[in-house]
C-alpha cells in the first residue's frame, strides 16, 4: 500500500484541523509537525517533557488520516499503562475532535468497561480505541481478533518509559508482535518522558529489525526544585511528612493547583487525614490512589478537571502524565529515590510549555533530608539514572503462548518468528522458546505424565487447545501484575457486615495484638484472625503504629547512594538543616557514620530480640540478598535468626541470639559458599516462584475476594510445588525462570561483590545497648522477610507450653 499521508513540514493540514488551531491562535509545535512529516515511518519515538503537547503530537497524524471520513473500522490503538490515563485522554481527545467537527469515534476499553460494550467493541470497533496492556492482551486472545483489528493503521504507546522495564511492557510488546503479524503495515508510535538512553527504549518499541525514528522535543527550561524547609524538624524515622502539614497548606494556598505526591498509598491516606484536620480554611482538597473505588476516583478526576480542587494528595496512580490543566506546583513527600522519577513527576507541574516547572520536596524523616539534598544536586547537574538492559522474561512468554492458543491454532515456527520481532525477545534462542512451548502444552515435566491431558495438542505441526473450554481459564489469568493474597479486614463482632478493606496476607501475619494501622481512612487496632479474616476494633489513637500497604517499592539508585556516602565524609554539613546535621553528629557520637571503603555493623537488643544492622549501601536488592545470605549462615550457626528487612542502605536482622563474631559472616568465601544452597531454598525464591508460576500459568490466579471453595481445603501453598519440583525435576523450566528472575530482580549478587571489594576486611563492629539513630527508621520499613528456621520450633515449644498452662489443660 502506498502511504498517502506524508506531510512535509510546510504542507497544509486538513482545513478543519488548521482552522481549529488558528481559531485559538495556536501554532503547531515543531515536534508535532515533525511527527506528521514522519508519520509513514514504521516506528517513531517522541521524547518530550510533559506539557509539550506530546499526546497531541501522537494523535495528530491519526486525526489527519481520519479527517476525510473514509476509513472503516479501527484505525488507531492507544495504550497507556493506567486506566485513569485512558479516561483522561478520552476527555482531552473528544473535545478537540468535536470542536473540529471530525467524523471520528473514540472509545476506551479497560477492566472497568461494561462487558456488553466490550463485546460490541470487538464486532464494531471505534476509529480510536484507548486501552491498557492487559485489555489489549485479552482482545488478542479472541478468535475474532483478526476482524477486530482489520483496518488498524497505528498504535500509540504512551508513557513508554514507564512500561519499558516492566513485565507489563513485555506483555504489551508481545501483543504488538501479534498485531504486526495480523497487520504487517502497522505503524508504531512511542511517547516518552525524558530518558537517559532513548535508543534502548526505541529498541523495545520497534518491530525487530525495523528502524525507529527518534524525535526529541525541546526539553524546556530547568525545573525549579527546592527542599521545603520547616520550622519543625522532620521526625527521626517513619514516612508521611505530618510535621510539614502547615507548611504544605501554606504552599497550597499560595498556588492555583498543587499535586502532592506520596510514595505509598498508606502515606497518602494518612497525610490526607492529617491535612483535613489541619485545614481550618476548608480549602478544597481531594485524594487519588489506585486502591480507591472507581466512583471515588472519577469524582476526584472530574472535580480536578472542573478546577474545583486546590490540591490533590496522590500516589503513582497519578504519576504518568495526566494532563489536568492548571497545576502550578508539585510537592513530593518522601525521598524521590530515583532522580529520573523525580524529574518526571515534576514535569507534572506547570503545563505551560517553556515555563519552568516548580516543585518542592518534603523529606519525611531525617535520612530522607540527606537523600533529598543528594537528589537535588543530581538534578542540578543533569545526571539522570541510566536504564538497565532488559531481556524478555520467560514467564510472560509462556502466558503469551497460551493467549495465542486461545485465538486459534498456530504453528511453532510462525509464533517463534512473531515473538523474536519483539525487541526484548529478539535474542531468544529457539530451544528456549521450544521449552516454553512445551511447558504450555504438556507441563514440561521430565516424567511425561500428561500425554493424555495435554493443554495444547500438536498435530502435523499445528498446536491447538485440547479443550476449548480452557480459554475461559486462560483469559481469567491474563496479566503480569501478581497481587499478594489478600485478607478481608472486619470490625470485631460485625460478622457478615461490609469489610473495611483488605490487607496482604503477608502483612496480616506480621501483626501483633494491639498493633494499630490505617485502613479505609480510619485507624484500627488488630485483635486477631478468625478464619481468613482480620478482626479489628476502632481505636481513638491518632497515629497508626504500622504502615499498612507495601505500596510500590522504589529502589534508590547507585548514584544517590554514592552521593550520600560522599556526603558522610564531610566534617560538617552546612547544606543540611540543623536537625539533620545534629542527627548525623549524634550517630557519629553514639556509633559512627558509614564510610565508602569500610562496612559498619551495629548490634543491639530491642523489644526482646537481638538485632544486627549492616550498612552496605549496595541498593535494596543486593542488601536483600545480603540479608538472606547472612541469615542462612546465622541459622547454620544456631543463632536463630527470625527475619530481616532491607533498605537501599542497610539490612536489619532480628533473631533470638546475639551475634558476636562479625567478620567471618561477611567473608566472601563464606558468602559464596552459602550462595548455592541458599539460592535454592529461601522465602524470596518461593515468593519469586509464586509470582512466575501464576504468570506462566502453572497455577491459577487467586480470584478476587477469595471466591473459592469455602475453607480453602482445596488450595495449597505454591511452596509445596516449588519443593516438589526441586526434588523430582530440578531442571524444570519453571525453576530456571525463578532462578533468573531472582538473580535479575532480587539477588543482584554483583553489587554485593562490588561492596565486598570496596570494604575489603575493613569491618567496624559496634556492639551497643540500644537502637542507634541511623538504625531507627529500619524498624518501620515494610517488606520484612521471615526466616522459617529452628527459631520456629523453639517459639512453638515456648508458646505451646504457655498456652497449655493458661488453659489449665494437661496432655492426656
Amino acid at each position, binding site marked *: 500500500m502506498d502511504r498517502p499521508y506524508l506531510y512535509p513540514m510546510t504542507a497544509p493540514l486538513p482545513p478543519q484541523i488548521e482552522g481549529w488551531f488558528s481559531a485559538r491562535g495556536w501554532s503547531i509545535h515543531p515536534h508535532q509537525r515533525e511527527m506528521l512529516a514522519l508519520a509513514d515511518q514504521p516506528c517513531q519515538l517522541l521524547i518530550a517533557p510533559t506539557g509539550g503537547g506530546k499526546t497531541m503530537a501522537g494523535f495528530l497524524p491519526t486525526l489527519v488520516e481520519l479527517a476525510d471520513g473514509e476509513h472503516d473500522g479501527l484505525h488507531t490503538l492507544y495504550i497507556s499503562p493506567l486506566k485513569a490515563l485512558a479516561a483522561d485522554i478520552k476527555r482531552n481527545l473528544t473535545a478537540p475532535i468535536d470542536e473540529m467537527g471530525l467524523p471520528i469515534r473514540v472509545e476506551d476499553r479497560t477492566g472497568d468497561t461494561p462487558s456488553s460494550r466490550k463485546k460490541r467493541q470487538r464486532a464494531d470497533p471505534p476509529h480510536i480505541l484507548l486501552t491498557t496492556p492487559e485489555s489489549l492482551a485479552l482482545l488478542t486472545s479472541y478468535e475474532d481478533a483478526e476482524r477486530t483489528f482489520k483496518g488498524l493503521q497505528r498504535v500509540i504507546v504512551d508513557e513508554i518509559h514507564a512500561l519499558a522495564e516492566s513485565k507489563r511492557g513485555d506483555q504489551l510488546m508481545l501483543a504488538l508482535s501479534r498485531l504486526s503479524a495480523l497487520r504487517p503495515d502497522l505503524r508504531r508510535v512511542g511517547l516518552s518522558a525524558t530518558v537517559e538512553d532513548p535508543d534502548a527504549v526505541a529498541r523495545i518499541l520497534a518491530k525487530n529489525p525495523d528502524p525507529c525514528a527518534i524525535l526529541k522535543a525541546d526539553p524546556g527550561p530547568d525545573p525549579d526544585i527546592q527542599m521545603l524547609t520547616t520550622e519543625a524538624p522532620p521526625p527521626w524515622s517513619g514516612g508521611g511528612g505530618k510535621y510539614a502539614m502547615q507548611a504544605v497548606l501554606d504552599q497550597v494556598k499560595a498556588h492555583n493547583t498543587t499535586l502532592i505526591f506520596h510514595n505509598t498509598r498508606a502515606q497518602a491516606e494518612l497525610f490526607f487525614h492529617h491535612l483535613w484536620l489541619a485545614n481550618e480554611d476548608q480549602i478544597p482538597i481531594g485524594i487519588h490512589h489506585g486502591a480507591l473505588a472507581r466512583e471515588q476516583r472519577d469524582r476526584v478526576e472530574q472535580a480536578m478537571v472542573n478546577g474545583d480542587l486546590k490540591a490533590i494528595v496522590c500516589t503513582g496512580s497519578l504519576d504518568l502524565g495526566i494532563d489536568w490543566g492548571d497545576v502550578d506546583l508539585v510537592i513530593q513527600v518522601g525521598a524521590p529515590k530515583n532522580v529520573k522519577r523525580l524529574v518526571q513527576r515534576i514535569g507534572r507541574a506547570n503545563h505551560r510549555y517553556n515555563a519552568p516547572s516548580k516543585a518542592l520536596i518534603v523529606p519525611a524523616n531525617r535520612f530522607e533530608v540527606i537523600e533529598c539534598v543528594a537528589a537535588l544536586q543530581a538534578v542540578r547537574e543533569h545526571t539522570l539514572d541510566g536504564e538497565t538492559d532488559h531481556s524478555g522474561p520467560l514467564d510472560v512468554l509462556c502466558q503469551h503462548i497460551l493467549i495465542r492458543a486461545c485465538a486459534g491454532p498456530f504453528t511453532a515456527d510462525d509464533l517463534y518468528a512473531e515473538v523474536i520481532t519483539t525487541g526484548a525477545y529478539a535474542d531468544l534462542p529457539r530451544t528456549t522458546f521450544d521449552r516454553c512451548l512445551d511447558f504450555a502444552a504438556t*507441563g514440561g515435566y521430565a516424567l511425561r505424565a500428561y500425554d493424555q491431558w495435554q493443554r495444547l495438542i500438536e498435530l502435523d505441526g499445528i498446536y491447538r487447545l485440547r479443550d476449548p473450554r480452557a480459554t475461559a481459564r486462560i483469559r481469567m489469568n491474563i496479566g503480569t501484575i501478581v497481587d499478594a493474597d489478600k485478607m478481608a479486614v472486619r470490625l470485631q463482632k460485625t460478622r457478615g457486615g461490609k469489610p473495611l478493606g483488605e490487607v496482604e496476607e503477608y502483612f496480616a501475619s506480621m501483626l501483633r495484638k494491639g498493633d494499630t494501622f490505617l485502613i479505609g481512612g480510619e485507624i484500627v487496632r488488630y485483635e486477631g484472625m*478468625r478464619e481468613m479474616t482480620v478482626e479489628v476494633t476502632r481505636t481513638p489513637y491518632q497515629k497508626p503504629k504500622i504502615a499498612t500497604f507495601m505500596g510500590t517499592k522504589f529502589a534508590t539508585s547507585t548514584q544517590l547512594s554514592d552521593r550520600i556516602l560522599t556526603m558522610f565524609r564531610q566534617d560538617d554539613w552546612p547544606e543540611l538543616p540543623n536537625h539533620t546535621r545534629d542527627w548525623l553528629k549524634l550517630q557519629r557520637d553514639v556509633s559512627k557514620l558509614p564510610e565508602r571503603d569500610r562496612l559498619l555493623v551495629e548490634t543491639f537488643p530491642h523489644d526482646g530480640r537481638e538485632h544486627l544492622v549492616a550498612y552496605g549501601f549496595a541498593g535494596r536488592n543486593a542488601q536483600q540478598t545480603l540479608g538472606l545470605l547472612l541469615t542462612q549462615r546465622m541459622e547454620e550457626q544456631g543463632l536463630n535468626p527470625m527475619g530481616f528487612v532491607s533498605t537501599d542502605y542497610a539490612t536489619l536482622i532480628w533473631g533470638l541470639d546475639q551475634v558476636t563474631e562479625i567478620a567471618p559472616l561477611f567473608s566472601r568465601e563464606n558468602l559464596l559458599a552459602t550462595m548455592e544452597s541458599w539460592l535454592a531454598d529461601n522465602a524470596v525464591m518461593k515468593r519469586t516462584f509464586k509470582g512466575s508460576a501464576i504468570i506462566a500459568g502453572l497455577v491459577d490466579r487467586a480470584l478476587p475476594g477469595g471466591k473459592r471453595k469455602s475453607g*480453602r481445603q482445596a488450595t495449597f501453598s505454591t511452596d509445596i*510445588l516449588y519443593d516438589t519440583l526441586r526434588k523430582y525435576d530440578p531442571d524444570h523450566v519453571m525453576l530456571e525462570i525463578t532462578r533468573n528472575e531472582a538473580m535479575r530482580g532480587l539477588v543482584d549478587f554483583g553489587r554485593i561483590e562490588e561492596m565486598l571489594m570496596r570494604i575489603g576486611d575493613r569491618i567496624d563492629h559496634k556492639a551497643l545497648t540500644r537502637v542507634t539513630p541511623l538504625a531507627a527508621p529500619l524498624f518501620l520499613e515494610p517488606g520484612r522477610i521471615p526466616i522459617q528456621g529452628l527459631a520456629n520450633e523453639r517459639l512453638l515449644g515456648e*508458646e505451646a507450653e504457655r498456652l*497449655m498452662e493458661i488453659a489449665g489443660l494437661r496432655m492426656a
Partner: protein
Amino acid sequence: MNERPFTFCGEALSALTSGALWWPNESTLVVSDLHLGKAERMARRGGPMLPPYEIEETLDRLIGDCDATGARRVICLGDSFDDLGAAQATARAVSERLAPAMAGREWTWIEGNHDPGPVDIGGNHLAELQIGPLTFRHIAGHAPMGEVSGHYHPKARIVARGRSITRPCFLVDDARLILPAYGTYTGGLYCDHPDLAKLMSAQAIAILLGNPPMHIPMPRGLPQDP
C-alpha cells in the same frame, strides 16, 4: 523417630512428624487423605498441570513411616485417591511403588467421599473398621466414642512473639480424633472453622506437626497472644 505420645480412649497413641498416627500396642499405622492423583485430576479437568510427582512424594513418606515403625497393619482413612478417575489412572503406579511395603502387612483402604468404591489395588476395602475401642472411618459421625477420622484436613495457627506459624494438626478430645491430611498436595481447614469448632469439645487439643509435634489447646476464634 520424633513423635508426640498421647492417650485416647485408654489407648496409648502417638502423633508422628509426618502426619501419621502410630498405635504401638496394635502395631498399627494410620494415615488419612493421601489425595493421590490430584495433579492428574486437575490436568484432566483442563486446570493447571501441576508437577506430577505428588504420588512419589506422598508414598515415599508413607513407606518411610512403615519402615520406621515396623507396623504390621496400615489403615488409610479415605480420600486416598483424589477421585475415582485418578484412582483408575494411577492405581498401577501406586501399587507398583507400594507393593514392597504392602507385602506382609494387613492393609486397609477406608472409603472416602472422593474415592467411594473399590480400587484395583491390593488390601481390604471397607467403609469403616473397628479395632478394640477404636472405630476408623473417613468422616466424623454422630455421637461417636473412640472414633478416628480424617476428611477435614485440620490446620492451626499460633502467633508467638509477633510471628504467625501455621501447621497441619491432629485434633483430639475425649470422644474423637481427627487426623491431618497426609498427601503432599493438600491444603487445610483452620480449626477455628465452625465445622471443626462444633465437632470438637471445649477441652480439645490440637497437636501441630513439627519436629517433634507439639500440642496446644485447640484454637477457637481469636488466637491467643503473648
